[in-house]
């Protein structure tokens, strides 16, 4: 799945593991990760892995960087773009699957269940 396809049909990027290439640059992947409401795994250029929530990035800074809260929620970590190979969308997308329509359907189902006659006793 491509990121643009995911956005167009409102599918989640959960599970996406992109590799930077001619058609998808690292800054583009970072923008998707910044927009993602779940934990991601930052793959370092030296192969190290850091999983956490990417809450900030600055592509226009003198040395562009990202900032993450790791899974333990300690102090934020700052990583320069230059030390990142790619980012995997490894954690659950917390914004996915919570549509208003789904809530209306759940509510209607609950109402119907309440109004349904109780099962006959044996």
């Amino acid at each position, binding site marked *: 799945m491509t990121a643009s396809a995911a956005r167009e049909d409102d599918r989640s990027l959960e599970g996406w593991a992109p590799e930077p290439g001619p058609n998808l640059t690292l800054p583009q992947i970072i923008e998707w990760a*910044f*927009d993602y*409401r*779940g*934990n991601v795994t930052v793959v370092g250029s030296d192969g190290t892995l850091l999983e*956490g*929530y990417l*809450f*900030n*990035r*600055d592509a226009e800074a003198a040395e562009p960087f990202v*900032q993450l*809260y*790791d*899974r*333990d*929620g300690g102090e934020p970590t700052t990583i320069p773009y230059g030390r990142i190979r790619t980012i995997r969308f490894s*954690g*659950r997308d*917390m*914004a996915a699957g*919570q*549509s*208003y329509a*789904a*809530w209306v359907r759940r*509510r209607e189902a609950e109402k119907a269940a309440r109004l349904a006659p109780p099962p006959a006793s044996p």
Partner: protein
Amino acid sequence: MSVPISQMWTVATYVLKQRLRGRGRYPLVLMLEPLFRCNLACAGCGKIQYPGQILRKHLTVEQCLQAVEECGAPVVSIPGGEPLMYPDIGRLVAELVSRRKYVYLCTNAILLREKLLAGVFRPSKYLSFSVHMDGVREDHDEAVCREGVYDQAIEAIKEALARRFRVTTNTTLFEGASPSRVRRFFDEMMSLGVEGMMLSPGYSYAKAPDQEHFLRRSRSQRLFSQILDGPKQGWRFNQSPLFLQFLMGKRDYECTPWGMPTYNLFGWQRPCYLLQEGYAQSFQDLMTMTRWERYGRKSGNEKCQDCMVHCGYETSAVHDTFSSWKGFRDAVVATVTGRL
């Protein structure tokens, strides 16, 4: 209009001081989000969809006070998340009151009665509970995706009023809102004895689950005109009458995105309360390093074209009040007569 005289005076003198100092950009209200955790999951809210380690975190009181000092705004609004879930909410509010900041504690009121009975807060002219109420019972419960919340909020409002707290309501109106039901809702709130009501159209958060139900600009103006034309004498609004006229399409303003800056776990949010385009590490960086020309309707930014939300435009209305005799006169006339 119902903003107390002392609060109006504080805001007026603050704005005039900023103008005399020649500050082109200054904050009016600090939006202080000590946590993202909430006990509701409303379909229109894009504020709470975060992984567990983020939802479990919160700012310390000291971090909050540091932000308040840095910002310097005379009014501090505490949204969230649900601020009554913040473990130090009583201490935070007491510290802000002692600094003579006008505090709007924005709450869904589910925990309010419990906190009041526990004596967490003391009444003060500086403290107002701003209770989230999106309409009459059926509309509110639908908006917050849980039945029974309206009744809980009403009980909490009564308890707070009985204990002589200031209580206002804040209402976000979505696509499909019925003007007649909203007017009935205003009557209900006024009959409870709340000090005033605040209104705003919803904004299309990129992460909000309910994308279809946010209002476009022209429909917003039509809706607010239908609601506010011929306002009843008893209705009181805790916001600028010029902002209400803007919502009705009687005035045109440009957004003031720096007017209500937001501070939370991630830092100072760029550029405003609604858009999350990055975070500055200090208030000074937010004000001086944000590319403000990229935001507001004139910028052509697609995300700003339909927005009429109070966090961008109420400051514009306040600025209008103090930047021309006409604005001042119009605000005074609307305040005194109640006509919009």
